[in-house]
C-alpha cells in the first residue's frame, strides 16, 4: 500500500456560529437543518456579531443554545413584539425571530400580524410541522384536515375544529410585508432553495425593505409516528398540496434586489 500525500479540501463543516453541542431535537426533525441554514446565511453575510435572535416557545425554545449570537427568549407567541422592541432601539442590528406554527399562527397571530403590518424590519423563520411538538403533538392551527394528533384523536374534523391556517398566504396580504415565501426542508433541492430564501429575507431586512418571513415546511417524525424517511415523504404527499411552496409576497423593491 502506497501512502499518498493527498491535499485535503474541506467541503462541509459546521458553521462556527453554531455551538458544537448535542442536539435536543428528535432524530429526523428538520429544526437542525433550519438552524444550520440560518447560521450559514449569517456567516456568509458577515452578520454573526451584529445579530440578535429572539427564541420562541415550543421545540425551538432552546434555539438560543445553538447560536453563538446574542439571544433573548420571548413569551409564547410574542417574539415579533419583543423583536420590535429590540429592533426599534437597535436599528443597525439584524434581528430575527425563530417560531413554530403554534407559537406564530395560533397564540401569536396578533403579534405577527402587527409586526408585518407595521413593516417591522425583522426576519421571521417560521417552522411549520403541523403540530405542537414540544407538548407532545397536539393539534395546531396548521394541522391538516383529517390529521390525527393527541387532541384530534379521530383526525381533525374541520366542521368542529376549523381549517388549517395558511400563514404565508395570509401575511402576504399585508402592505408592510415585503418578502413572504414558503419553502420546505424535506429534500436536498428544497433545502438549497430554502437557504436562498433565508438569505434573501435577511438581505431584505439589511436593506430596510420591510418585514420578511420564510415559512419552512418541516418534519416531526416523533409526533407524526413515522420514521425519518417516511416523515419526509409525508411532507411531500400530505403537506405540499395544502401548503404549496412559492413566493407569496415579493414587494417591488425586493424584486429589484440583485443577490
Amino acid at each position, binding site marked *: 500500500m502506497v501512502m499518498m500525500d493527498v491535499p485535503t479540501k474541506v467541503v462541509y463543516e459546521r458553521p462556527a456560529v453554531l455551538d458544537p453541542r448535542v442536539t435536543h431535537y428528535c432524530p429526523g426533525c428538520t429544526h437542525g437543518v433550519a438552524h444550520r441554514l440560518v447560521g450559514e446565511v449569517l456567516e456568509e453575510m458577515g452578520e454573526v456579531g451584529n445579530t440578535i435572535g429572539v427564541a420562541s416557545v415550543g421545540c425551538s425554545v432552546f434555539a438560543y443554545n445553538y447560536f453563538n449570537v446574542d439571544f433573548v427568549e420571548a413569551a409564547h407567541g*410574542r417574539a415579533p*413584539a419583543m423583536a420590535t422592541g429590540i429592533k426599534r432601539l437597535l436599528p443597525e442590528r*439584524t434581528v430575527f425571530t425563530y417560531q413554530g406554527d403554534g407559537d406564530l399562527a395560533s397564540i401569536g397571530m396578533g403579534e405577527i400580524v402587527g409586526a408585518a403590518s407595521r413593516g417591522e424590519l425583522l426576519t421571521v423563520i417560521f417552522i411549520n410541522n403541523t403540530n405542537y411538538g414540544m407538548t407532545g403533538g397536539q393539534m395546531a392551527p396548521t394541522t391538516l384536515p383529517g390529521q390525527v394528533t393527541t387532541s384530534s384523536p379521530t383526525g381533525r374534523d374541520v366542521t368542529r375544529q376549523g381549517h388549517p391556517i395558511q400563514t404565508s398566504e395570509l401575511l402576504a396580504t399585508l402592505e408592510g410585508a415585503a418578502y413572504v415565501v414558503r419553502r420546505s426542508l424535506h429534500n436536498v433541492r428544497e433545502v438549497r432553495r430554502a437557504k436562498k430564501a433565508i438569505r434573501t429575507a435577511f438581505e431584505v431586512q439589511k436593506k430596510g425593505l420591510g418585514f420578511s418571513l420564510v415559512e419552512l415546511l418541516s418534519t416531526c417524525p416523533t409526533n407524526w409516528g413515522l420514521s425519518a424517511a417516511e416523515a419526509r415523504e409525508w411532507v411531500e404527499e400530505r403537506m405540499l398540496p395544502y401548503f404549496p411552496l412559492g413566493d407569496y409576497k415579493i414587494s417591488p423593491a425586493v424584486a429589484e434586489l440583485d443577490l
Partner: protein
Amino acid sequence: MAKELIKGNTAVAEAALRAGLEAYFGYPITPQTELLEHLSLRMPELGRVFVQAESELGAINMVYGAACTGKRVMTSSSSPGVSLMMEGLSYIAGTELPAVFVDVVRGGPGLGNIAPAQGDYIQIVHGGGHGDYRVLVLAPASVQEAVDLTGLAFDLAEKYRSLVCIMMDGSLGQMMEPAEIPPMQPLKTEIPDWAVRGTDGGEKRFLTSINLDPPDQERLNYRLMTRWQEIEANEVRYKGYYLDDAEFVVVGFGTAGRVSLSAVRATRDKGIKVGLLRPITLAPFPNAILNELAEKVEGFLVVEMNAGQMLEDVRLVVRGRKPVEFFGRMGGVVPFPDEVLTEIERLTAGPLTTEGHPRDRWLARMAEVLG
C-alpha cells in the same frame, strides 16, 4: 423652570421623556390615553421610539424586548389593559430587567367604567403575573408628585433591575394642576453589561426567564427576594401629616389620601387630634412607621377607593393592637371629604373594637347608602 397648568397624564409623559425615555410602547385606553398621545408626537420629534402596539399584550412584550437593550423604556395603560400586560410583566420580572409602567386605575372589575378607582391595589402590589416576584409601586397624590415620581421610577428600575409601577387613578390622570416638570436630561450613555446588542465578536449574552432546572430557578427566586429585602430596607417612602401628636390616624394613598387630608384638616379645626399617613410606596409598604404609630395612637381609619385592599396590609402591621376601621367607595366613586370627616368623627367618638372585620362593619354602613 416655571410651573405650568398641565394634565396628569401629559405631565407624566413629558416627565418620562425628560428623564431620558428612549422608547414608549402603548395602546389607547381611557383614562390614560393622553399619555400615549403626548408621546406619539414628542418621541418622534426627538428621534426616539414610539410604537402604538396591536394590543397591550404587544405593547408590554415590546417593552420586554426593548428593556433587553438596557435603555430607558416604558408603557402605560389603565386597569383592563394592565390585566392584559400581566404575562409580559412576569417575564420582565423573571428576566430581571428594568422597566417602568403606569397604571391609571379605573373602576372595575371587567370593563367597569372610566372613572377613578384604586381597585388594582392587590393586582399590582401583591401579584398580577404568575410566579414569585415583586414590583416597586409608587402612588402619587398630585400631578407634581406624579412628575417627581416618574424620574425616580426610572432610577429605581435601573438600580434594582426591577419593574416599577406608577399607580395613579383616573382623577390624577385627567386633572389639570400647576406642576413644574424638570429640565431635559441627557440620554443615558452607559449600557449595562447584561444588555443584548450583538456580540461584535465577543462573548454571547442571552436574556431569558426560563430555568428548566428547579434549583436554578430557586436561585433566581432567592436573588429576587433578597433584592426585595434590600428595596424594603432602602426605598420606603411616605408622607405624614399631623402625626406628631395624633391620637387617631387615617391611612390612605393617592387620591383617597388627598381627599382624606382635607377631612383631616377639617377635623383638626374642630380640635380633634387626627393625623394622616399617606404611603407613597405601596410596595415596599411603610411598615415601620405604621408599626410605630400602632404603639402610640388609639385607632386607625383606612380610606381607599376600593373594597379594602390596602386595608389588609395595614391590619397585618397593626396586628390587632389597635382598632382599625375602614371606609371605601368603589366602582369609580370618589369619596367626598365630608364623608371621610363623618367616618373620622365616628372613629374618634367610639366605641372602638378590635373584634370582627372592619370590612363587615363598613359594608353594613354602606347598606344605608347602597342597599
